[in-house]
C-alpha cells in the first residue's frame, strides 16, 4: 500500500470513445491521487487498453474530459502539445515494443537524449543506474532479441522511467510472460509504487492488484461497473457481474 496525498493528478470525467460507430468507452470517470496506484481489471475487449491510450493521447476521445498533471488531454490538438504531455505520462506495453536495432542501454537513453535534449553523459549515468535498478546491469549491451521476455519488459520499464514521468501506465505488462518471469517484473513495479510513482495498471494478476492497489476498478462493456479498495472489491463485491468475473478468474 502506498501513501497517497489527496491531490488528484489524473482526473477522468465521463469519457466516451468510439472506433467508427462502435462505442468502446461509454462514460468512464475516475481519479488518481498523486502517488496513488490503481488497477483496472475486466474482461477482454472491455476497453481497458483504450482507456490507457486515451490517457496519454494516443487515441482521441469523443466526449468527456481527461486531465493529467497540468494538461487537458481532451483538448490537445497539435503534435507538439501531445509530445509535451507524453513527457509526463509514459506507457509500458504488453509486447514490450523495444527498438530491436538498439541495445538495452541505447533503448533507455534514446528518448532523454533526443526528446528531452539532455546531455549524453548525464543520460548515460542515469540509464546505467536505471538498468541496475531493474536488475539488468549485466545486459546493458544486449540487443532486445537476445533478452528474455521478462528482461525485455524490465528494459521497457527502465526506458519509460528514463523520461522521469509523473505518471506510469502499464498495460498488461506481464500477460506475455512465463509464470516464473512475471515475478521479476511485478517486483520492479512494486518498488516504483513504493517510491511514490503514480501508477495506473491494467492487469490480470489479481493477487498483485490486491497487494499493490489503493483502488481497483472493474470495467465491462466500456463502463466502470464497480470500484473500491482491493479488500472490499475482491471480497465483498456488490454487483453480480463483478462477482461472476472474479469467481472465474480467482
Amino acid at each position, binding site marked *: 500500500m502506498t501513501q497517497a496525498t489527496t491531490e488528484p493528478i489524473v482526473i477522468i470525467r465521463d469519457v466516451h470513445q468510439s472506433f467508427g460507430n462502435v462505442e468502446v468507452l461509454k462514460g468512464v470517470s475516475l481519479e488518481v491521487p498523486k502517488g496513488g496506484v490503481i488497477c483496472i481489471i475486466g474482461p477482454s475487449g472491455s476497453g481497458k487498453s483504450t482507456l490507457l491510450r486515451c490517457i496519454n493521447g494516443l487515441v482521441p476521445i469523443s466526449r468527456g474530459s481527461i486531465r493529467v498533471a497540468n494538461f487537458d488531454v481532451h483538448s490537445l490538438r497539435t503534435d507538439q502539445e501531445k509530445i509535451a504531455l507524453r513527457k509526463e505520462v509514459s506507457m509500458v*506495453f504488453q509486447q514490450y515494443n523495444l527498438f530491436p536495432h538498439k541495445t538495452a542501454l541505447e533503448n533507455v537513453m534514446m528518448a532523454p537524449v533526443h526528446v528531452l535534449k539532455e546531455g549524453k553523459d548525464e543520460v548515460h549515468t542515469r540509464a546505467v543506474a536505471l538498468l541496475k535498478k531493474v536488475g539488468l546491469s549485466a545486459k546493458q549491451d544486449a540487443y532486445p532479441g537476445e533478452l528474455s521476455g521478462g528482461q525485455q519488459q524490465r528494459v521497457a520499464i527502465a526506458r519509460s522511467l528514463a523520461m522521469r514521468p509523473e505518471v506510469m501506465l502499464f498495460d498488461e505488462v506481464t500477460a506475455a510472460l512465463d509464470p516464473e518471469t512475471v515475478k521479476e517484473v511485478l517486483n520492479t513495479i512494486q518498488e516504483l509504487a513504493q517510491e511514490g510513482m503514480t501508477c495506473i495498471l491494467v492487469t490480470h494478476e489479481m493477487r498483485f492488484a490486491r497487494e499493490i492497489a489503493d483502488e481497483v476498478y472493474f470495467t465491462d462493456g466500456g463502463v466502470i461497473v464497480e470500484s473500491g479498495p482491493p479488500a472490499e472489491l475482491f471480497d465483498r463485491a456488490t454487483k453480480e457481474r463483478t462477482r461472476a468475473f472474479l469467481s472465474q478468474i480467482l
Partner: protein
Amino acid sequence: MKRSRRRDALPQGTDLPVLLPMAAHLARSAAIERAAGVPMLRLRAAHGMALLVLFAVGCGIAEAQGQPSQPSILTTILKWTPLLLRGFVFNLAISVLAMALGTVAGLFLGFAQISLLPPVKKGAWLATHFFRNAPWLVLLFYCMFLLPFQITVFGVTIPLPDWIKATFGLSLPVMANVSEILRGAVQSIPTTQWESAASLAFTRRQTMWMIILPQCIKRMLPPWMNLYAILTMATVLVSIVGVSEMMTLTRQALSAENRPGLLLAFYSYVLFWFFIYCYPIARWTVRLEARYAVNI
C-alpha cells in the same frame, strides 16, 4: 520470445507439421516477392552449368557446320571477346547509372507515398504504380522519342546521346520499384513501434529517421539488390533502340562472320557473361535475406 516469433512467421492454415518448414519458407519468399514487386532472381550454380552445356552444344553445332578451312569456333569467339567485353562494360555502366538515378528518385517517391498529405500520397501512388506496371521496353521507347537530343540550360547546350536517354528510360521502372520497396519496408514495421515511440514523445519525423528507417534498411537491401540484378539483365533492351552495348555488338560480330552456325554459341557466351556478373549478386542477396529473416 524465440518460440512466439517463429509462430508469427508461420502462415495460417496448415496442420501438417511436415509442411510447416516449407510453408514458412514459401510464405517468406512470397512476401519478399510481393514487397519487391519483381520476381526474386534465384540464380544457382546449376544455371551456370546449364549455360556452359548450351555453349558447348553451340560450339559443337558450329564446328559441324563449319568448313575445315575456317578458323575454329573458340578462336573466333576469342577474337571478338575484347569488343564484346567493351560492350558489356557499357551495359554495366548503364545499369549502375540507371540504378543510382532510379534509387535516388525512388526514395523521394517512396517518401511521398507515405506522406500524411493526401494529394502527395495519391500522386506518388499513381506515379509508382504507373511506372511499375508499364512494360520496361515501352518506357524505354518513350524516353528515346520524347527526350530531345540536346538540352540548353542557361545558354549551355548539353547533348543527350542515345545511351543517356536509354539510361533515363531504364531508371523509371527502377524508381517505381524502389519507391514500392521503401513503402513496403516502412509498412512492414509493426505499428507498435510507432506507438511506443509516440508514447516516449518522439515526433513523427524523429520516429521515422531514428526508429523506423534504420530497421527498414535491412529489409530493403535484398529486394534492392535483386532489382539491380534484374536491371542489369534488362540493359540488353537498349540494343533495340540502337545503343551499341554487348547485344548490338554481338549482332554485328555475327553478321561480320556470316556463319549462321555461330548463333547459339555466341548468344550463350553473352548469357554466360551476364551470369558471371549476376550470380554473386544473387547469392549475396539470398544470404542477406536469410540472415535478416532470423534477426528481425
